[in-house]
């Protein structure tokens, strides 16, 4: 379990993280979402014991990360932003170094290195210097060093940043496979990733916590949630006639697509389909919107809202 208690970090007069408190339970996959410079990485660096908070602290499985930094670090696996590693070492040498540094029992060092190399499909490159590897392999090396000691808590700073779509999918598959009864914290600014991986999302901007919800909950905040979009002939006429339905709060016509926002009475989709068949409109596309995460993200973090 992680308990962050009023974490603050300032650089001079700049408050990178401003009074952040939260608790993460076992089994949660938490996504830190926020614009660049929001304080996501700084928060992670404080949780991992790399940075000392200006004030406040965090408990990692009950161990204070400020007072007993080294003891707290034993519970954590960490992938820093950009997956840095010692480029001149081979994958195998690097893994052996991390395994020993992670205090793995002397007799288990080799077997745990072999296991993690196998798990992340690094066998073919294990004798190559890390600096000669492609970005995807380097990221996997970074993930491997983070999980080699099977930590209870995994903190991954932008684990899929800069990877191609196939590699992203691969890394996500790995993370999902590890998620069971661990704590995983992921920072990202890729919205689809949050929906794909996390069961909890925290939106951070300017060092402050702006939202803490499940991905479904966040999507539910979208004004598009349960709206109905359709492409139809003579859309303007259709729009004005549908606006009169009690279930429709507003109709918007954009780029040939008509979107109807629910008024809260419910049954919007049914009412629209009924109207379509009754009037025999020529509909070429019709769908129920679940909500748009990018729009929620924008609403919560846009500069006007915080100014």
């Amino acid at each position, binding site marked *: 379990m992680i308990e962050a208690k009023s974490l603050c970090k300032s650089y001079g007069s700049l408050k990178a993280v401003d009074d952040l408190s939260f608790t993460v339970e076992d089994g949660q996959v938490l996504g830190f979402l926020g614009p660049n410079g929001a304080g996501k990485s700084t928060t992670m660096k404080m949780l991992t*014991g*790399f940075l000392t908070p200006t004030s406040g602290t965090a408990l990692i499985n009950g161990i204070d990360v400020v007072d007993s930094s*080294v003891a707290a670090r*034993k519970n954590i696996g960490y992938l*820093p932003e950009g997956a840095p590693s010692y480029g*001149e070492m081979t994958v195998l*040498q690097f893994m052996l170094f991390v395994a020993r*540094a992670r205090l793995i029992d002397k007799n288990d060092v080799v077997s745990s290195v072999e296991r993690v190399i196998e798990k992340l499909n690094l066998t073919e490159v294990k004798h190559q210097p890390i600096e000669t590897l492609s970005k995807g392999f380097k990221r996997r090396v970074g993930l491997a060093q983070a999980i080699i000691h099977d930590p209870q808590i995994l903190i991954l700073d932008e684990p899929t940043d800069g990877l191609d779509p196939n590699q992203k999918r691969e890394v996500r598959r790995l993370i999902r496979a590890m998620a069971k009864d661990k704590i995983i914290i992921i920072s990202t600014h890729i919205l689809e990733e949050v929906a794909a991986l996390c069961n909890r999302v925290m939106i951070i901007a300017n060092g402050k916590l702006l939202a803490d919800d499940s991905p479904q909950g966040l999507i539910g905040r979208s004004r598009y949630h349960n709206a109905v979009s359709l492409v139809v002939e003579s859309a303007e006429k259709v729009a004005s006639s549908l606006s009169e339905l009690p279930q429709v709060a507003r109709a918007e016509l954009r780029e040939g697509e008509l979107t109807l926002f629910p008024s809260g009475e419910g049954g919007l989709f049914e009412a629209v389909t009924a109207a379509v068949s009754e009037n025999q409109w020529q509909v070429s596309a019709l769908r129920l919107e679940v909500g748009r995460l990018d729009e929620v993200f924008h609403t919560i973090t846009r500069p006007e809202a915080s100014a």
Partner: protein
Amino acid sequence: MNGMINIMRRELTGYFATPVAYVFLIIFLVMTGIFTFYLGNFYERGFADLDPFFRFHPWLYLFLIPAISMRLWAEERRSGTIELLFTLPLTTCQAVLGKFLAAWFFIGLALLLTLPMWITVNYLGAPDNGVILAAYLGSWLMAGGFLAIGSCMSALTRNQVVAFILSIVVCFLFLLSGLPMVMNLFSGWAPQIFLDGIASLSFLKHFADISKGVIDSRDLVYFVLVIGFWLLANVLILDMKKAD
């Protein structure tokens, strides 16, 4: 302890995985040769000792040791691996000592490779081997002093060139602090005790004492204190500013 040894082992692997180690060893051996035989007039002097060999060590170290030490921490900062290193369950002390000892042993290896010089002088005459052994010890201790300064300077920046130049400047001050060139800056206005203090900081003087074969505990303590002081400063600098 295990943590420190692990860091040490990693560092040494790193040296030999890149050309750094080989380039350094070759340059060191070539330079000591040149200094000893050409500038030191090893043969012409007609004495069976290694004085011409050891006399130039401080000047060799002045440039070669910052070249080894500049990457110690600057490279960790530049590549971001410092974040990896200090989120492992290790103390800053263990990391600093591990890196320092690796570099120090490496320089010890370079010194060991000059043993043919010792063998040569024994072949040519009958030198006082006790003096030579003391001088080797003194040279290695002095190298440790330079290295501790270099390691500390390297922790200040993410730029290896800046670390190199800073190290040379600070090492140069320590090297020369007993010579008239530096003393003249202070004499006339500073109190005598201060002058004595500065004069006693000189690497040259302490090294000269040891390499005459006189192992005075004060000279040993001096180098141990210098190393301890700069490594402590190194730890404090890292603890204070890890992130940038």
